[in-house]
């Protein structure tokens, strides 16, 4: 079973994503911010992390850095999912080591397709 960690502080968005991925037979983990995410990642190794950037406490960039630094997570794909869509933001995200950079608003169908492809 594929595992996905969804990190976002917007409850409505999380709810939709959780339902969608659960329908795809993913095991879904949820974190409201970076620190919760890192907690979860201590004990679980998901195939992919969907990462928002603008979050309280630890933001997306910081979380990405931590994930990249963790040897256990070197096979975990990290995908940014954010409303920040300027060219410079995309550059920054990819430079930091994100595997993909996706913007909000998004199509759920598209996201599922992309994620599936990614973890193949």
């Amino acid at each position: 079973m594929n595992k996905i960690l969804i990190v976002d502080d917007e409850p409505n968005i999380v709810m939709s994503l959780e339902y969608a991925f659960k329908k795809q037979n993913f095991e879904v983990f949820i974190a409201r911010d970076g620190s919760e995410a890192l907690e979860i990642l201590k004990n679980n190794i998901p195939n992919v992390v969907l990462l928002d950037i603008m979050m309280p406490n630890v933001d997306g960039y910081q979380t990405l850095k931590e994930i990249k630094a963790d040897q256990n997570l070197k096979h975990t794909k990290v995908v940014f999912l954010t409303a920040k869509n300027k060219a410079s933001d995309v550059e920054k995200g990819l430079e930091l080591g994100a595997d993909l950079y996706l913007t909000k608003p998004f199509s759920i169908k598209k996201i599922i397709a992309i994620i599936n492809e990614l973890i193949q």
Partner: protein
Amino acid sequence: MAEKKSENKWVNHPLVYSLSIAVYCTAWTYYGSVGIAAESGISFLPIYLGPVIAVPLWIIAMRKIIRISKQNKISSIADFISLRYGNHRFLGALVTIISVLGIVPYISLQLKAISESFEILTNTSHSLTHNIFYDTTFYIAVILALFAAFYGTQKTDASEKHRGIVVSAAFESIVKLVFFLVIGVYVTFYLFDGTQDIYDRISKTENFEKLISFNGLESGFNWLFMIMLSFMAIFLLPRQFQVSVVENLRERHLKHTIWFFPLYLLLFNFFVIFIAWGGKLNLGETANAEYFALLLPLQNGNTFLALLVFLGGFSAVISMVVVSTLALSTMLSNNLIIPYGYLSKFSKADPEKNTNNIKTIRRISIFSLIILAFLFYRSFSIELSLYAIGLISFVIIAQLGPSFFFGLVWKRGSARASIVGIIIGFLFTFYTLILPFTIQSLTESTFFVENGPFGIALLKPYSLLGVDFLSPPAHAFFWSMLFNTITFLVVSISFRGNYRERNYAELFIDNKNYSSLQDNAFVWKGEAYVSNIKNVLNKFLGTERTERALDLFFRKYDLPKDTEKADARLINFSEKLLTGSIGSASAKILISNVIKEEEISLIEVLKILEESKENISHNKNLQEKSKELTQLTDQLKNANNELIFKDKQKDDFLDTVAHEIKTPLTGIRAATELLIDDEDEMPSELKQKFLNNILQDSDRLSRMINNILDFEKLTTDRISLDSKTHNLKKSIEKTIESLMHIANQNNISIDFSQIKDVEMRYDEDRIIQVITNLISNAMKFCDKANGKIFITNKIAGNEVEVCVTDNGKGIPMEDINYIFDKFYQSKNQNTKKPEGSGLGLAISKQIIEKHQGKIWVENIKNSGARFVFKLPLNN
């Protein structure tokens, strides 16, 4: 180069300067004044009133003189006058001769006083008739001469300061004053019972009235002329010029002297009449009134006191002689001997020899002067009282007056006029003052005095042209000054001075304008080579000093070190360097020997000076303009930076707005997509949930858009308040009503029982908006389990304060300053969904400030936050 910095600070105290000027009081003051006070009454005073009147003027006059002298390294009054009139060699020599003629009698006066006071003290008889070698005065003179000769000539650069001499003179001024006051107090309060007692007794003697009164209008003239005489003396006496100008360390010492010196003179003179009268009462008419100060204590067996008085007088003599001979020897060497005798010799010799020669010349001068004074004393002192000799000395020195004083203010005065004026003035002085007593002492006949030369009554030396109501000194002063001044003025107007004189005239009189020009103020045209000038300088300063000086010069004017041609500035600079050693006249001669000067017209001189002045002021203007320009550029830079910053702020704002709008949109789209794609797999409660989410997010979106538009309108001032009179209590209650249901949902109690009625003007909708926002915030932050919100209001002076307090954790310190900024969301909210737009407090702030009010937040120690806003009552 000139002053050595003294490590001892106290020697640089302004008091030292002020006291050194009291070298004006000599044995004449000590003994002569008492003599006059006893014989003729008030006429001892004018000698001190002149300086008292002169000294307040020093703030302008002396400052100017000191400044000019420092700039030009002037070392004596002969230097000063000769430089003023174009660095004129003969004029400098003439001033020197007049000074010597004037001061030698003065020194002999001091010797006379020493001799007589010594004899009184030791009770020996008058030794004048004896062989010179039995005359104690001779030995005193020799010792004095040797002492002064070596003490005063340690340095060759005469413009350097003689700190040691000045400090000793200051010390001696203290000694002489203290001892004189002691004797004054002794006579007045010990020998008698105070001033009233002396007066009562003396007023009973005959002819007393004339001692305390003017005795007629004519003596008013004597009085006036004596005052004018002493007024000039305080400027012109060589020893006064030395201590007040040459030895001045800092201009601001004048600040103290101007009140201190008159005070000194007052103290010195106060007891004179009482000593005089006491003497008259106790010693009678036979005793020499001049030495009452000695005789009175001696009469009472107080030898110690008499000794003190003698020492006081002696110290007065020493400081006078040392300072005067120093001044005179400088003049003699720099203005008379070197320019007229030694110049060629010096040019060929080496610097060390030159220095020694100069020193030797000065020492011999001092020695000779004192010996000459001694001879004068032996020849003439019987006939003349101390007082009379002193006045003769003053009148001779006064001949320098017209050139000196006019030279400070009148540009047209010329060297020729000074020379002729001084000579004529001196001739008059000689005829009316010196000749009579000379003839009298040599021929024992009074014919000349009583009948005039060859019996011509109108030419009687003491009453020329029938002016017979003046005392001899006043008479001499009047005529000599009259003719001196008239000659000076007439000759100045009739014969033009040369351009050099005019150059210096400009420098002296308009000193303020030119002081910034310094070396540039000297105008000169011609051809000169640095190497030639260097040779001359080497002869007197040595190669090392010359190298250093020229180095400084080239660096100052940014010239290459191997400059070949010398310009006016270098010539001026070199002349000044030499002036200290050999005087300005000789310096000029030496330098002019090695350069080729061209005639330059007066007009050209003035033109060049004007140009130099203009250049300097032009430069100043340029500097100011460039400073202004830099300031403007900075201002522009700042404005530009501000614009860039504001621009970025706007960008940031738009970015944040975009983000805030996209977030609910994302939620709406995701939920909608799920519902559309659902093939009946979703349980209906989940469907409801998603639909609710969509609703929620739509509301959120519309709220956000409204807030943003609101905020935008508020910040760009496009909103006008709809202010009417409302009841604040009612408005608050309205607000709370609409929020009650949310409060109840979350177990939050709102306490508004303390609200008072207040009628005031405000925009109710907007204020309700603010209160709504505050209460919403409070609900977000208050305690989760047992939320309590208090709302209160109070009137404080001219304002109403409304407080919304919650019992949460308070605002984190890091947020407190930013909480009213737009889009700032605290990290410590209760609800998971950020319900606010982040703009609420920012909008509230805008609204309150539009009402001319203030809004802020306070933390109540760990137990919540209190938001307060206040509004003015009369809007």
